[in-house]
């Protein structure tokens, strides 16, 4: 029974945490691609910027959450989302819009976003330093230990407070985005522009408005992903930058330009990563007597070591690009 608990803790919960963060990040990347047709490499650092805003606000108002019993960082998250959305729109006005106006090729925008990455990272390092910092300043990270109602289950299922918030907020964000895209006038116009920008313009849809709305949504989602990631571990200036590859892998696996695909892709990549580094020998322990010795004697039966975790999304990316470049949901080919 303890093996099952071990599996839940190390695969189900860990995979859902990683998957949720990849999913929210990938949705932003895929929305930007579907409207502006370029891979936004600065997305990871927009996530970090969102978390950085939370860090600043939490430092300024450390007691804000105590009054209502919610971590201060989460109380201030909506404000950080608004600031990050503002930053995203500002970056677009300052850097991407002039490039689009010149009618440059998408690759120029991609390289431009690489420049924005370096700028944002430098800016955040300048103020936050290079080390890790906890987003829990005045409050404590709650850890829940749930004992399973089975005989012999000695180890509890462990889940932390930010992880629970992460699951709830991911669900709310995905449902909210779905309702926005399928019900609201602006959301439908966004899908229309993603389908056929010329016809959207001929229908009287103001494409500049749609671009701005896209950045607001992408910025707000990036702030959510960055903050929840930093709450789960700690805030670091390069934390989200290293998620860029799995997030793009998730967007491509799901089908670029397909928001629901991005959510699915996020969880596929998240769970693939977690399963690849999971030590399967633990699960084999109960069957020790009926298995060959070479299998039970091995101490670590993970597919790859934890330090090579980043190989997994790379592998998935290559496989998808070779076998199904349009992704699960038949998206566009980057």
């Amino acid at each position, binding site marked *: 029974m303890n093996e099952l608990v071990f599996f839940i803790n190390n695969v189900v919960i860990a995979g859902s945490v990683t998957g949720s963060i990849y999913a929210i990040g990938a949705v932003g990347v895929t929305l930007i691609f579907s409207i502006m047709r370029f891979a936004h490499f600065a997305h990871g650092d927009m996530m970090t910027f969102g978390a950085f805003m939370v860090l600043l606000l939490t430092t300024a108002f450390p007691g804000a959450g105590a009054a209502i019993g919610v971590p201060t960082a989460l109380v201030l998250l909506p404000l950080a989302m608004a600031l990050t959305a503002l930053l995203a729109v500002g970056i677009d006005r300052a850097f991407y819009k002039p490039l689009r106006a010149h009618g440059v090729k998408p690759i120029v925008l991609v390289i431009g976003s690489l420049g924005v990455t370096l700028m944002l990272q430098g800016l955040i390092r300048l103020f936050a330093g290079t080390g890790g910092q906890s987003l829990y300043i005045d409050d404590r990270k709650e850890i829940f230990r749930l004992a399973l109602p089975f005989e012999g289950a000695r180890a509890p299922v462990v889940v932390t407070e930010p992880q629970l918030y992460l699951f709830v907020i991911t669900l709310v964000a995905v449902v909210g985005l779905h309702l926005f895209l399928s019900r609201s006038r602006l959301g*439908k116009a966004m899908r229309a522009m993603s389908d056929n920008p010329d016809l959207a313009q001929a229908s009287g*849809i103001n494409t500049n408005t749609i671009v701005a709305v896209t950045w607001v949504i992408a910025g707000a989602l990036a702030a959510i992903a960055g903050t929840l990631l930093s709450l789960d571990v700690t805030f670091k200036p390069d934390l989200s930058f290293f998620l860029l590859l799995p997030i793009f892998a998730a967007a491509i696996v799901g089908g670029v330009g397909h928001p629901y695909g991005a959510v699915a892709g996020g969880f596929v990549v998240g769970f693939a990563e977690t399963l690849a580094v999971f030590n399967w020998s633990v699960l084999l322990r109960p069957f020790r007597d009926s298995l060959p010795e070479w299998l039970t004697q091995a101490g670590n039966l993970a597919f790859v070591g934890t330090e090579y975790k980043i190989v997994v999304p790379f592998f998935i990316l290559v496989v998808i690009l070779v076998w199904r470049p349009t992704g699960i949901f038949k998206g566009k080919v980057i």
Partner: protein
Amino acid sequence: MPLLDARDVHGGYGGMNILNGVDMAIEADEIGVIVGPNGAGKSTMLKAIFGLLRVSQGEILLRGEPIHNLPPNKLVQKGMGFVPQEKNVFPSLTVKENLEMGAFLKPGNVRRMLKQVYDFFPPLHDKRHQPAGELSGGQRQMVAMGRALMAEPSLLLLDEPTAGLSPLYMNEIFEQVKLVNSAGVGILMVEQNAKQALAIADRGFVLAAGQNRFTDSGAALLADPDVAKSFLGG
């Protein structure tokens, strides 16, 4: 005052002139048809009217107001609708969503206009929850025309609405164009099926090499032996 009055329109792409002085006028309740050989500038003229192409010389008036070189979304506000020849629907949006996009600038109109468009094109009502990309060519053309009608245009520009359709659908589209016109919408369309199109046209414009070759009523052009010989295949 004519609904549309284009005078001596010159224009083209990247310095290459395709239109070399086209005149074109239709009244509010008329169907105008542009015919002519390939490369005559028929579609180009339509694009110039809808602001998709720079007009370098001449003027285009909509009810007396100059509109040349205004962006398309401004023209939609002024009562112009445009149905491109290709890629004229949003494939992943449902039929209903496609139509709603046509009324993007007039969201208050959606319910009333949806009903009217479904009356014009009954098959669309049955397929309203289906993605437009899954429809047949003829039904797609209906979605495209319906989308443009949602903004209640006074002038509808159609670029080869029957291109690639079977003869059965072709007749249906011509019937629907007449129906839309009888509801008070001025129509200006480019057509390859010149004989059929001129048969429903109040005004016919035969273009060649970016200039007017013949301009007359549809019936007169059909009866003209010169037009028949050079442009309608005898």
